[in-house]
């Protein structure tokens, strides 16, 4: 690879650095700075953190958040482990079903189905009404913190499932055959060999779940749980104001927890990166299940899939329901909610498409540029761009929202409106939040292109810039498209940063509208209809992205 530093590359790197500086580093630094200064603009102090530690509500919220996140990991593992074990180690026709339906929760963030799940599993929800009628008891699925844990576990277990299954599949089959050969089998073999070897995958999934749950604002709030840390940050800023230091202190704590979790993960994984991927013979030998085991396996799978589908089913029912309370199923069905949503609430949908589209476009451009600079140039400090963009992973949405509000509220446009109230700020916040994912997609796309293809172009007389335009970008299209669609889909349901930044209903995206509508019993139907539309948008996008990847790989004659 040549190491010529063209002025174009330097300008590109500086532009990206500026963008990340203004829209990521400055807002987060502002939050940290405010947390450490005295109220009213005094000097640096730790007094705010002492206040945090002395306030019962915050300490309780902190431990509640830890408890909920940890228990979510536990229950998500309980759901994911049997599915991963069954699908990777047995000849099992349900495996395909698990592979597809198991990922369903990923296309819908937990807050979307929260109210529907109340109606299905709440104290007077369908399941408890039936349990009460038949067996005379109720189960408090949705009581207080349990409700948050229940909902989050159902939604986030696929993160563990995906990582764990991939790790289990990647274990060289001789690893387990050697154990069988030495006298081990069944669950004991799984516990002593397969599970320890798949541990890195499991931990990666589990820590992701922990952080996501810890940072989630909307789900607890929709379940009327306020005593958790992320909701407290939001409530503090929106009810007391952007001058109150406590919101910032909580934000810093949220960041610290995210960073600590990632750091602890890295620490545990150290020296455990067992690259045992297939050296010899093909895939794993999967065992046939005996008839009795089959029944048991199907029972487990169906039970878990029923749980997974519950929020979706509930949401659809709710969106068509006239009245639904104190009864297992709605009293009647109507299309009124959809007419309402597609009529006067259609601004939400329009805004979502606009915001998510712009955010995804920004992500693909910046992600692609960073990937190119890091992988294909020798620009000093290029790695810093990658690190900076990736730190967005450790910044909770609510913190970014607060940072934007604080950093840009003072900045006014010529006509006097504060910068922070413009809708474009929402787009930028979403774009920053999704950038790490687009960046990974761009890396993957670029890594598949052999450097020699570019060298061949240069050898034949193309300049760097023309090589990028005529060789690199066409070959990356499939991967970048997939990155765009994934960013778009997840941006369409982003809420935690949006919640803080939306100033008027007319600027609000779908997720915000859904959140507002779901607050009142009268708005639930319309909220659910919006939720169904959101799920459809995301599902179609995911399908398109899969299509884009498949097609570009086939076009290049690569084995899929």
């Amino acid at each position, binding site marked *: 690879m040549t190491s010529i530093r063209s002025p174009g590359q330097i300008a590109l790197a500086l532009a990206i650095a500026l963008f990340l500086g203004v829209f990521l580093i400055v807002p987060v630094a502002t939050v940290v700075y405010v947390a450490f200064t005295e109220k009213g603009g005094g000097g640096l102090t730790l007094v705010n953190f002492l206040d945090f530690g002395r306030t019962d509500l915050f300490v309780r919220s902190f431990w509640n958040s830890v408890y909920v996140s940890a228990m979510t990991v536990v229950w998500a593992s309980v759901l994911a482990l049997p599915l991963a074990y069954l699908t990777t180690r047995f000849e099992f026709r349900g495996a395909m079903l698990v592979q597809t339906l198991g990922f369903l929760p990923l296309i819908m963030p937990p807050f979307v189905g929260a109210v529907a799940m109340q109606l299905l599993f709440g104290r007077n929800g369908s399941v408890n009404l039936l349990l009460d009628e038949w067996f005379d008891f109720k189960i408090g699925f949705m009581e207080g913190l349990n409700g948050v844990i229940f909902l989050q576990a159902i939604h986030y277990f696929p993160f563990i499932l995906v990582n764990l299954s991939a790790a289990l599949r990647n274990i060289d089959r001789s690893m387990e055959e050697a154990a069988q050969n030495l006298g081990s089998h069944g669950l004991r073999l799984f516990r002593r060999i397969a599970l320890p070897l798949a541990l890195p995958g499991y931990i990666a999934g589990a820590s992701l779940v922990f952080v996501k749950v810890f940072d989630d604002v909307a789900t607890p709030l929709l379940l009327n749980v306020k005593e958790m840390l992320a909701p407290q940050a939001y409530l503090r800023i929106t009810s007391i104001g952007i001058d109150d230091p406590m919101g910032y202190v909580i934000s810093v704590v949220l960041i610290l927890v995210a960073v600590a979790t990632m750091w602890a993960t890295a620490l545990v994984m150290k020296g455990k990166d067992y690259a045992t991927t297939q050296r*010899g013979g093909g895939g794993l030998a999967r065992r046939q299940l005996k008839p009795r085991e089959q029944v048991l396996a199907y029972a487990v799978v169906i039970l878990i899939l029923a749980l997974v589908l519950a929020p979706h089913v509930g949401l659809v029912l709710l969106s068509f329901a006239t009245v639904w309370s104190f009864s297992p199923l709605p009293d009647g069905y109507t299309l009124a909610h959809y007419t309402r949503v597609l009529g006067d609430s259609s601004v939400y949908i329009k805004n979502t498409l606009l915001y998510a589209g712009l955010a995804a476009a920004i992500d693909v451009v910046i992600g692609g540029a960073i990937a190119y600079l890091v992988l294909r140039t020798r620009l000093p400090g290029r790695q810093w761009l990658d690190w900076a963009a990736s730190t967005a992973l450790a910044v909770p949405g609510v913190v970014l929202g607060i940072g934007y509000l604080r950093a840009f509220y003072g900045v006014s446009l010529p006509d006097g409106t504060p910068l922070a109230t413009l809708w474009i700020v929402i787009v930028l916040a979403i774009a920053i939040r999704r950038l790490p994912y687009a960046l990974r997609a761009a890396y993957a796309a670029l890594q598949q292109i052999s450097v020699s293809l570019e060298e061949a172009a240069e050898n034949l007389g193309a300049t760097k810039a023309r090589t990028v335009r005529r060789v690199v970008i066409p070959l990356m299209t499939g991967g970048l498209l997939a990155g765009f669609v994934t960013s778009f889909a997840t941006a369409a349901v982003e809420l935690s940063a949006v919640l803080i930044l939306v100033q008027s209903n007319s600027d609000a995206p779908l997720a915000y509208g859904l959140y507002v509508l779901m607050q009142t019993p009268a708005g639930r139907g319309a909220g659910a209809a919006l939720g169904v539309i959101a799920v459809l948008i995301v599902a179609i996008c995911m399908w398109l992205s899969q299509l884009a990847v498949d097609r570009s790989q086939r076009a290049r004659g690569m084995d899929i």
Partner: protein
Amino acid sequence: MSKPARAVGIEISGVNLSYGSTHVLKDIALSIRPGEFFAFLGPSGCGKTTLLRLIAGFAQAQTGQVLLDGQDVAPLPPWKRDVGMVFQSYALWPHMTVAKNVAFGLEERRLPRGEIDRRVAQALELVGLSAFAERRPAQLSGGQQQRVAVARTIAIEPKVLLLDEPLSNLDAKMRVSVRRELRALQQRLGLTTIFVTHDQEEANTICDRIAVMDGGKIQQVGTPMELYEHPANLFVANFLGSANILDEKSGVPIPPGKRLVFRPQHAALSAPESAALRGPVTHREFLGATVRYGVRLGESEVLIETPFQSGSELRSVGDQVGVDLPPRRMLFLPA
């Protein structure tokens, strides 16, 4: 390692095995004697590894049976067979130390701790790795890893030892010393051992007997010398050492349906006038101890190796030469 009470024989008969429409093993019948060091030798895809995995219980045959010490092993799952297998990739568990790896099979057998410790120490000493007990596999060299894999397997005192291409992941120099170690170890333990390889030199140097396999069939069974001197068919002749194979188009009188087979070093070059077979030299390679000539005979070409002595005159490409082939070195094998 205490010697096993008694070495065990293996009887394989009528084995057919298919994966879908691929017939991988065809009518396999074999008798491996107690204490023998036996090789399955053949090119990749010949079914040798599948046959090994069948004995270990990782593959199921549609017909036939495998008797271990006279007992049919078909109903036994891999973990009840007591056949120790050393995998091609060694399959050392990276999350365990060397000692833990070796202890695994003993722990699965629920032996008392003291007994496990004693046998782990013994097995590691046998392969000369006592000092490495607390290392992780990743901290060892390829040859050391291979020895750990062997120690782990013999620690359970298996009835037979199965080695799946154990030398293929080692460099050429290591291969020679490790195969000597393996042979010495096998002799000391008196353990019936099956060695799978595609390398005829490996098989020849350490095995008592060899089953040559191709296309899912056993082509011939015999000692290395028997196979070399009396190959049963063209495949065996060609696979063990190099062989010249001639048909009637070479101008040599050959019975119909047969081929003439001879080794390059069994023929000699002579003056063209007096020889029954003659042709031009097509190429010449200097190999040190020998010189290898290519000679055209009719439409065929044969290779002839002659010993090299300094000062001796070499033939040049294009020279007409005669080829002398003693009748006792001529083999006529079915085409």
